[in-house]
């Protein structure tokens, strides 16, 4: 009975959605408004104006940089929310022991240790070359965060946590928003607008983009690892 009702509901939702999809500008057409209006300028002049060969990077950090400012805030919000919701639910000392009592495989442990530097290097590469190839701060940061998670599971949590010292962790978690505030303010000084970049691929632009990429990366990695650890603290 319930199932039938749900299916009727889905059918009701499906009708207008499909009708709208059928009437959308044709898929893949080069004449659709989405391609001929704003995107046209980005594609034609994006490299000179935004200072990155990868136009997507140019869009997220330069043209629509403020969206990304919001994005890094969202991910820090998630971190703060998870900490606030889970805080103080259990004595930390207990879980350290609980975590280390998980049976582990020597082979996995060895392989993780062997691969760890290469994964870290890959993460760094993804961050550094985000302007000219696919990837960027957040992707690299996620890869690094994933490395920390793998190390926590396969090697030991203490060792993984040592990479993000507890004393400065609250600052690492907000590296993303802070780098945006810093670069944004630099933009006010240099161009008169928040998050403004000097025109073209000057050294200043490159430096500002790099600061943003690293801020997003460090912040992202710390937040992801912190959320995972905090979730692990729960019994």
């Amino acid at each position, binding site marked *: 009975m319930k199932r039938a009702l749900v299916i009727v509901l889905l059918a009701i939702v499906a009708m207008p959605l499909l009708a709208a999809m059928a009437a959308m500008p044709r898929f893949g057409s080069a004449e659709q408004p989405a391609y001929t209006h704003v995107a046209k300028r980005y594609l034609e002049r994006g490299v000179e104006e935004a200072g990155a060969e990868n136009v997507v990077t140019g869009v997220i950090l330069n043209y629509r940089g403020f969206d990304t400012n919001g994005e890094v805030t969202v991910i820090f919000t998630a971190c703060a929310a998870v900490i606030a*919701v889970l805080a103080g639910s259990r004595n930390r000392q207990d879980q350290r022991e609980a975590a280390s009592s998980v049976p582990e495989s020597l082979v996995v442990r060895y392989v993780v240790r062997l691969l760890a530097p290469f994964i870290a290097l890959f993460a760094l590469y993804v961050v550094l070359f985000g302007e000219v190839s696919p990837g960027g701060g957040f992707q690299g940061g996620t890869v690094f965060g994933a490395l920390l998670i793998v190390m926590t599971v396969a090697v030991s949590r203490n060792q993984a946590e040592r990479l993000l010292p507890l004393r400065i962790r609250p600052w690492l978690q907000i590296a993303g928003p802070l780098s945006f505030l810093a670069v*944004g303010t630099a933009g006010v000084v240099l*161009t008169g607008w928040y998050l403004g970049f000097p025109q073209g691929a000057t050294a200043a632009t490159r430096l500002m983009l790099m600061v943003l990429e690293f801020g997003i990366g460090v912040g992202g990695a710390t937040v992801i690892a912190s959320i995972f650890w905090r979730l692990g603290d729960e019994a």
Partner: protein
Amino acid sequence: MWWQWPHWLPLAVLVPLGGGVVTPAVARGSARRAWGWAAGVSAATVAVSLALVIRVARGGPFSYAFGGWQPPYGIEFRFDEVSAFAFVVAFLGALAIVFSRQYAPHALAEPRVPYYYTLLLLDIAGLIGFSVTGDLFNMYVFMEIVSLTGYALVAISGERIAEMAAFKYLVLGAVSSLLALFGIGMLYGVTGTLNIADAASRLGAAASTMPVIVAVALLVLGFMVKAALFPLHVWLPDAHAIAPSPVSAVLSGLVVKLGLVGMLRLYGVVYASRAVDLSSLNWLLTWLGAVSIVMGAFFAIFQDDIKMMLAYSTISNIGYIVMGFGLASQYALVGAAVHIFNHALIKSALFLAAGAIIYQTGYRRLSDLRGVGRGMPLTAAALSVGAVSIVGIPPTAGFLCKWYIALGAFEAKRAAFGFALVFGALFIFVYYIRMVNAFYFQEPVHADVTHVGDPPLSMLVPVWILAALCLIMGLAGKVPLTFVAPAVSRLLGPLGG
């Protein structure tokens, strides 16, 4: 003049945002330090947003282009009369933070307190950003900041029911955000732009209206879940009643208004372009608004829990505003827009006063709180002022905007709704009378209630500032009405409303 400095506009968002993210690092675990920092940041936010309101009152709407990219190529902040909501947000947020000084360490576990302030400040930042942004996708990003902080703030007390209420809120909130994102995507596909003003001008040229209609429907549905319009209100009563009281004040006063401000922005796109005919949508909204008024009031009558009653009363008041939107006449829209501001003030006053009473007595049921008018005279008086305002009795803030919505109903030649509105006000009157009656005229059940005394000043002062504003806004009721009128005329302009 000082208020003309262009960077006040981004600062209104960046101050609470930056201040919010660094709170845990600054507080280093101390609740006192966290409060001091948060109070300072929120005071700065009030100052910045005041500059914006002065500027819009003197010179009309203005905008700020991030990175110097002129719209539609970059993200634009646009401050118009409706954006003055940002000032209400900053002001009420600051009062909620001041109120939390003693309340938060009492209601929350110690390590959560700095994060509580972080989340409150980020919530304020998100709300301000939402009400000033001129970009559809940026609107979504701010909506998500507000929603995420909202879910966490409901759950932060760590009680079982709080977490369950937060989860319910989260699922519905996430689905509604997704519907809005779907709608934004469709609008982008049809117009090729994300800038609201640019979309409005390009929508008329859309090859087919079907995607536009569905996109509008999705956005309206998403916003109405956020605004808790009946029958999409199921998440609201639990979430608002169980959250810590300053959070309830922010959620009920400000966060539900996100959907309504979003609606005004959406109207801005659609009315201006005349791409689709909204009359059937408006017909539906008028009806749902009317049903919402009655149902919210009806459920409120049966609540014994004081905060639960206030939460249902929010649903009823959202009904007034949505009905005003649906009537779509000059008077009704002005009344609805001002009621967004006034309801924020009144409902925050009520929730903060109720929070102070619960903090002092430890009871939250009306039947337990009998006689509290004697024990906490100043707080109970503030609560009564709020109650009188929300009913809409003439010299208070609630009266003029409801009167304008009723006038709008006659103006739109739908007098029946005008009467529905008056009828709803009577209903609301009944349940607030019940509350006042319990406070002052019934025999106390618990003897301690009659001599607990008023709460500390950090609670009493915000409560009375808000109660006083309820009276002042009633006496000076014309000021906000004339203030938003140009925005409404601009909105309805092409329709000749």
